[in-house]
């Protein structure tokens, strides 16, 4: 199962945001980090892959099957997209909110398998203790973890996470990304995450794609990408790339 994005162009109305984006052969079980400054087109790329925006050009292929024009519901079975965090005031428990995400594509009746999947997902993400809490009563970070649970529970081929760590403290940043990695080891989906923290990207991703002004500047292994001069240029900073004792990449950035 691989995901291929071939010369994809898309936008809103007459404004084209993505220009000829190509990311080839992302194998199942790969964690791709999408990096780039604000307004680089990261969310637009995710929305286009998720089918919320119809591309003006290009194709999307999952496991050799062209899904470019697959309908909303069929697409949702293959691709799960987590938009950037928004609060909500619904009177629903965390358990129910994860269940409803699963039920969008699994028929009307709630069966035992559905309930098992919801409790397993909450357990895997360390959210079991929140199961009976109301979604409106969650902190920003907890809400973000629940949003990740809503995405993972659907067991899709492709998981798209738009800034999954933006509202999280350090512990939860690591814990959520570790849980996602563990989940990937079990079910082997393709995971793409838009990340602002280059160090987190270096630590967790197998591959990084640098996006700027809706076009791809670079695509490759983290140690390769982070060492490129385009990083300094794109982010308008000076960087030094170091390796820690445990051979983890560390990007030291400062203003130019």
């Amino acid at each position, binding site marked *: 199962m691989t995901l291929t994005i071939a010369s994809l162009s898309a936008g809103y109305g007459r404004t084209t945001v993505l220009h000829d984006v190509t990311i080839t052969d992302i194998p199942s079980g790969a964690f791709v980090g999408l990096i780039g400054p604000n307004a680089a087109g990261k969310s637009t790329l995710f929305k286009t892959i998720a089918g919320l925006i119809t591309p003006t050009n290009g194709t999307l292929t999952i496991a050799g099957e062209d899904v470019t024009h697959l309908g909303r519901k069929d697409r949702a079975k293959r691709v799960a997209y987590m938009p950037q965090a928004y609060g909500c005031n*619904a009177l629903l*428990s965390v358990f*129910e909110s994860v269940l409803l995400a699963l039920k*969008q594509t699994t028929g009307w009746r709630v069966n035992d398998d559905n309930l098992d999947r919801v409790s397993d997902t909450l357990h895997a993400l360390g959210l079991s203790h929140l199961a009976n809490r109301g979604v409106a009563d969650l902190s920003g970070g907890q809400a973000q973890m629940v949003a990740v649970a809503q995405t993972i529970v659907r067991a899709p081929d492709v998981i798209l996470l738009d800034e999954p760590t933006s509202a999280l403290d350090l512990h939860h940043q690591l814990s959520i990304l570790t849980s996602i990695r563990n989940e990937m080891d079990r079910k082997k989906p393709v995971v793409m995450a838009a990340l602002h923290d280059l160090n987190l990207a270096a630590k967790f991703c197998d591959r990084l794609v640098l996006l700027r002004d809706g076009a791809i500047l670079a695509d490759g292994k983290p140690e390769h990408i982070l060492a490129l001069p385009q990083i300094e240029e794109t982010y308008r900073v000076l960087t030094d790339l170091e390796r820690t004792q445990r051979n983890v990449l560390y990007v030291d950035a400062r203003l130019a």
Partner: protein
Amino acid sequence: MTLEVDPTAIRHDYVARVSRRYGVIAAVFGLLCLSFLLDITTGPGGYSLSTVSEVLFDPMSHGARLKVIVWDYRLPVAVTAVLVGALLAVAGAQMQTILNNPLAEPFTLGVSAAASFGASLAIVLGFSVIPAVGPLLVTVNAFVFALCTCGFILLATRLKGVGSETMILFGIAIFFTFSALLALMQYMASEDQIARIVFWMMGSLSRASWEKIGLGTILLCFAIPFSLYRTWPMTALRMGEATAQSMGVDVGRLRVEMLICISLLAATAVSFVGTVGFVGLVGPHIARMLVGEDQRYFVPLSAMVGALVLSLTSLISKTITPGIIYPIGIITSLIGVPIFISIILSSRRERLQ
């Protein structure tokens, strides 16, 4: 911080919560049946429950007079109360969900005001929107105007950049426009016509008839499966539009489909009984407090609470002063609002049940 909680325990909690909800729904249904029975046994003349129930099963058992009282008068009124309460509450519940606003209901969105104007147009000018409807002139006019208002709201949701707050403002604008037009009609009307308009606007169950009940029942039988089929997307919508969309819900299409359904429900209810504010608000709010917002339980319970509220109102309207039946529109607002406010204040914050 990761607390270890047994995964089977949270599953049990959910299953327990679901069965508690069925319990609540059964209890409200019980209360509704009780209220309905009291409603048909209450009225000028005061026959006992056993006499009335005998007439229900065998119309002629106590003579023609009692048959007329029970079958042609009390029963249509009691059934209409239940039916209209359910229609208004379901319409309110779903408006609140698709517009993401707890204030949305047929009354606040100007549907009732439009219906009143339609009715007054028929009463004062004898003008009919649909020709040759005969005695149903007032009802049909009210229905058409209510439906057109819902159509306007529907069109407005299709405009780009119109959020749910704008929708409510739009509803308030409609409300004021039709109130002004209504005042104009009253200014032009004769004393007798003014009396009829005012009486229509007060909301009354005395306009009940078996034909209307049949029509309303058919509509409800269509609307309930229609909305049950869409319960999961509708519940997802409560998580926010962006989230629902990311889960594969076509939010734009869902809004249009549901608004069409709601329009029919609201227009029918309002044209049957006139202006009855507040039931479309209180039904969903009490239901939400009792079972939360999983639409599988929320929508049916809203219907039942709405039906119960209007059925109790019908009962109260007959018992305050023996021999006088007050218009229900007055009762729902006068007695209902203080009760509603006390419910809201007693549970300051809506807690998940």
